[in-house]
């Protein structure tokens, strides 16, 4: 057992993956000598050398394209995009090639790559450093989108993403990179992709979230418990494809659901989950499904970003509103 922050857990997963499999290589801007601007790759170039931890020229589209070529050759590249706000030049490579290579060659070539990027608001960063646009990637066939919500989960899910034979966009909630230290077993075992994790069992209402918002969602559940409301908390973790089975089973039990995400509301993954609940357990519902989300605005700069982020009291209020629905 070791006690680590989320960013340390990412670093440890990369270290263990590289020790275990020499096909694993890292690439990105400043990932080598500097160890990444958040230190996700700290010490790895020193240990594995510049052939396996590559500082690339400054071009995100190129990083993705390079990784696709490497992956097609059987390497397992883990590419870092420094911030999600800079990932957009790479979208063409991810949607047009990474997600399609296996399908269009009928399995002859594949793309076992991971594209890591820190995402989300809340660290008083400059413009373009705060978006949560995971829904863009969730719409891409052939690509998985995985978002950890705690150090232990980051460790296990990143190992799984690297081992996975298909491309994974791995989004790291940077607001909680150093929020808490968690004790977890760094046993080199991946945690499962494509499944939700039930973090807390409850009977009255289901709270569904992912990423950094899982922290506020957990706190809301604690406050609701004090008011006699028993909330079940589900961490979606793999936001594409979504494990609706776990969510539907929970909602069938509780009859109530609030979905919490930091990303803008419209076209968000919360809408997709709510639609799935409507399709499959309408008659179990005791109240409408409510979403607590970021606004359909540009993420405001530092002075107002706290107003954008879903807050604990918003979640509690939404849950009570749902409980009181008649």
């Amino acid at each position, binding site marked *: 057992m070791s006690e680590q922050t989320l960013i340390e857990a990412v670093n440890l997963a990369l270290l263990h993956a590289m020790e275990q499999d020499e096909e694993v290589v890292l690439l990105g801007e400043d990932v080598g000598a500097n160890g990444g601007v958040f230190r996700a790759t700290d010490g790895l170039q020193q240990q594995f050398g510049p052939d396996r931890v590559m500082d690339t020229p400054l071009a995100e589209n*190129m990083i993705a394209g*390079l990784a*696709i*070529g*490497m992956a097609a050759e059987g390497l397992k590249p883990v590419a870092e995009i420094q911030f999600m706000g800079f990932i957009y030049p790479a979208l*063409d490579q991810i949607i047009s090639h990474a997600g399609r290579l296996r399908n*269009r060659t009928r399995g002859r070539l594949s793309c076992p790559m991971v594209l890591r990027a820190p995402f989300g608001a809340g660290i008083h960063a400059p413009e373009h450093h705060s978006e949560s646009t995971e829904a863009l990637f969730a719409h891409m066939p052939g690509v998985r989108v995985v978002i950890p919500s705690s150090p232990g989960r980051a460790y296990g899910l990143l190992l799984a993403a690297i081992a*996975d034979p298909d491309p994974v966009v791995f989004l790291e909630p940077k607001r909680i990179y150093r929020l808490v230290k968690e004790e977890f077993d760094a046993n080199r075992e991946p945690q499962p992709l494509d499944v939700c994790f039930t973090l807390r069992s409850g009977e009255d209402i289901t709270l569904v979230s992912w990423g950094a918002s899982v922290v506020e969602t957990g706190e809301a559940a604690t406050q609701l418990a004090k008011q006699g409301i028993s909330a079940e908390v589900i961490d979606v973790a793999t936001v594409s494809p979504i494990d609706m089975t776990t969510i539907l089973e929970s909602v069938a039990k509780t009859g109530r659901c609030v979905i919490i995400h930091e990303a803008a509301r419209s076209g968000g993954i919360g809408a997709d989950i709510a639609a799935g609940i409507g399709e499959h357990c309408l008659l179990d519902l005791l109240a409408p499904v409510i979403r607590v989300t970021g606004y359909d605005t540009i993420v405001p700069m530092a002075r107002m970003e706290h107003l954008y982020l879903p807050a604990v009291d918003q979640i509690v209020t939404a849950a009570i509103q749902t409980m009181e629905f008649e």
Partner: protein
Amino acid sequence: MRTAVAQFEIEHLGFLDPAGDLLGELPADIGSLEQIKRGYRLMVLTRLFDTRAVNLQRTGQMGTFPSSLGQEAVTVGFSLAMQDDDRFLPSYREHGAQLCRGVTLLEQLLYWGGDERGSDFQGPRKDFPLSVPIATQCLHATGIATAIKLRGEQQAVVVCCGDGATSKGDFYEAINVAGVWNLPVLFVVTNNHWAISVPRSAQSKAETLAQKAIAAGIDSLQVDGNDLLAMEYASRQALERARAGGGPFLIEALTYRMGDHTTADDARRYRDDEEVSKYWQQDPIPRIKAYLVAHAGWSKDDEEALQNDCKQQLEQAVKDYLATEPQPPEAMFDYLYANLPEAYATQRQQVIDKASTNPNGADHE
């Protein structure tokens, strides 16, 4: 004080004039006559394939198709210079190179006929499928070359793009990283003078496209792309150098797109027939044939046998293509991931059911 800190020049390479006569003495290590005969055969087959494919499209038996008419010496030239274990990443007009690499006529017909199995090459298993998005494949080539270099293997990568593609960031990003990482990549820029309707002159103010390599610090050469000897020779030198660790190279192959962009295009809307007629004088096929007649004793009988053999091979492939059963409907799910996530199981069953009740897609015809 202002002083020159760097100076550059771009060379042009050609061995044959349009009539197939030698422009000067050939280098001692020019492509062997056997190799050039093989190239000639591939060029003839490619032209027959192009003509037949357009015909199949016009008669509703194949999808939209981009002819490579007039560009046969480019694609056959560089691919003759490749070794089997090199990697090739085509754009979408390199039918001749794919044939040379061992992608079959049937696979190419299947691809253009709308069947993904056409990219499951049974021959060159590591070659990339063709790239419809422009220039994106240049970056995949650098990734492959990085893997080759990391593993210490003596192989090279050839990637093709067009003159229009050199305007894209992917192209610049690829030549840049290939240069700074000294990757074993040959970039072949097929300058056929047209990007659909946009002429080369409207694509870039650069005097040559070969000079774009200079900014990336890599060597380049402009080659007469309608001269098979020159294309094979320049490519072979570049590939030998790359395999030996000498780094990337860029060839600007000067040629001309004799046909429409694709069967969905009508080039008469934007270019003069006069210009096209002028380029027929540069046709690469009679040119290399004249060379073989003069230097390899290529006879009328040889020619007749070659034409018959190619036509027979092509007609057999067309027959096989038309007789190929479609894929099962669930194939659209079965290669999406190594293991289809449970989340998509319902949709997979839905398409199977849909195919059983609506097998011909009558609503959308």
